[in-house]
């Protein structure tokens, strides 16, 4: 990549957020604007994908709500992300956990990682 573009991208990166890894259980707090009102919404789930470099990076969080799987993709460096909390870490052997989509209940549980 061009060096100038690299510099521009680095300027927009957020370094205050914790490192998010695939298999982590996270709580993502995002700012939501409704008219002129602003509120914060929380989304909790497991990170199943990380992609892209620099400012283009995104990550996808999956949760199962009332038996329906929901996935939400966030730009990792978005200014709309208020904070990210890492609740737990899991042992994973894939970089993309797409296989979780086919599993239900106990089978979809990941093994906890102890540091």
């Amino acid at each position, binding site marked *: 990549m061009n060096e*100038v*573009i690299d510099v*521009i991208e680095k300027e927009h990166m957020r370094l205050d957020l914790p490192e998010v890894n695939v298999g982590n259980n996270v709580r993502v707090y995002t700012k939501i*604007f409704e008219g002129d009102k602003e509120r914060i919404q929380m989304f909790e789930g497991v990170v199943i994908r990380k992609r892209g470099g620099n*400012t283009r990076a995104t990550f996808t969080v999956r949760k199962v709500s009332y038996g329906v799987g929901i996935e939400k993709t966030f*730009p990792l460096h978005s200014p709309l992300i208020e904070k990210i909390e890492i609740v737990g870490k899991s042992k994973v052997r894939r970089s993309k956990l797409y296989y979780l989509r086919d599993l239900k209940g106990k089978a979809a549980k990941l093994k906890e990682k102890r540091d």
Partner: protein
Amino acid sequence: MGIGLLGKKLGMTQVFDEDGSVVPVTVIQAGPCYVIQKKTEKTDGYNAIQFGFDEVKKVKNVNKPLTGHFKKANITPLKFIKEFRVTEEELESTEIGAQISVDLFKPGEYVDVTGTSKGKGFAGVVKRHGFKGSPASRGTHEYFRHGGSIGQNMTPGRTMKGKKMPGHMGHERVTVQNLKVVEVRGDTNILMVKGAIPGPTNGYVIIKKAVKKPV
């Protein structure tokens, strides 16, 4: 009318705007541009300013006529040379050898960007003109991406002019209009516009004020 900038496409990326939404931007190295020559109605028949951009690395490879041309303006030889038609007042306010900065454009303004599109070689009608081709099944035999009939019978007895057919695609002058200027960096002469512009990375482009967006 009015001067513009010469530049080089560096590539695309994305930035976040103040609402937090993602804006796709093209980064252009737009300058430093130098004034090489001023053409006047009296001597050349029209008013124009000749701009140059991108310094030549091996000065010894520049031919003699061009070396003399640059010497007149007292600047080092440049690779990309273009003229902009201007009014008399604009002609008087610029000096030969002067450097035109990227500050000509402000964030929020609209520009037109002209470049040479990427060459696609000899392309068929599906790629070149968006024809649908033929069905993939139901008896189609060796006729998947053809253009079909190209005319009628004895009357008119010829193919109509301008019939869309296969041929060379790309590598032509293309202008993209009304691109919003997202950011201007005067110190490094970097211009960022929203959206894509024609040509490959490191391709030369001409940036002008938008014709169809009067400010």
